[in-house]
């Protein structure tokens, strides 16, 4: 199974969500998260593998700008067209207030951009983390209910 967190970028909210899913968010210190606010990683537009959980589920992030719902729809259609089952790829959109501001910060020159991204993202996102934690817990519940029932 693969879980893909779809955010404005692959290196902000979606990366936080992936780390929460993998239970490896280090003391709310975003700068310790590998690749956080590293916008260069988002340029490729390819899914970014964050890690695997104990069940072997691969967790990815992907940046889709403002069109999260539309991109989720396309990826779910693509999964179908390619003949894959729904549990082969689960697409979850994640967003937090301030995501759009971070998109604007991409226009900053590369030197220091990562630092500014990290600082602003930290200030904006920390108060919103409990909501993201709840969303991830709900997703895990949905996955275990829906797909373990399907397997049995």
């Amino acid at each position: 199974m693969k879980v893909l967190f779809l955010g404005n970028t692959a290196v902000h909210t979606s990366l936080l969500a992936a780390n929460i899913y993998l239970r490896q968010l280090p003391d709310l210190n975003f700068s310790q998260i590998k690749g956080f606010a590293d916008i260069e990683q988002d340029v490729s537009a390819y899914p970014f593998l964050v890690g695997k959980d104990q069940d072997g589920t691969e967790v990815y992030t992907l940046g889709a700008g403002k069109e999260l719902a539309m991109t989720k729809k396309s990826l779910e259609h693509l999964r179908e067209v390619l003949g894959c089952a729904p549990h082969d790829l689960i697409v979850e959109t994640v967003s937090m207030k301030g995501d759009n501001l971070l998109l604007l910060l991409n226009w900053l020159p590369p030197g220091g951009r990562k630092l500014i991204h990290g600082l602003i993202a930290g200030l904006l996102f920390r108060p919103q983390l409990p909501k993201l934690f709840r969303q991830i817990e709900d997703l895990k519940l949905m996955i275990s209910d829906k797909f373990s029932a399907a397997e049995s």
Partner: protein
Amino acid sequence: MIIIYHCFGGSHSSVLAAALHLRLIDKCRIPTTDELMAIPYFDKTCDEDFGSIRFMGIDDSGHEVYVLGKKSMGGRYSKILRGVASILGKEDQVLPVDCTNRINLFMKIGGFSSRRMGLISPGRPIVLKGTRNAFLDMVNLVETVRIKTMKRGAEVKIL
């Protein structure tokens, strides 16, 4: 293989490209209004269709041909589709083709008026004129894709 032609609305250039690919219209002459309007989905989509990968047919090499409207996501959408196909282990089976670089101002204005604003009577003639003007560019794009996919098919056979 799965070929996905995509453009802003998934209603004009991508649909024309798919129709050319599937030989639903003759590539050797500019199509008439009736011929263009007879193409499935041509100038008939709505907002709910954004993001939907819609089946158009199977070409003579056995490849499935689809169309998709991706708003202003540009060339990034091809990379996204290929990337997600690759994590599913099927990168070689998907060929996304961006049609937005072949459209002209008439198609943009006419398409926006007809599909986004719902002004069909002024928008449709403009988009039809633009489509005819862009026709040879679209033929060129589609022929390139057909050659590419024929080569891939040949490689698979050799292997």
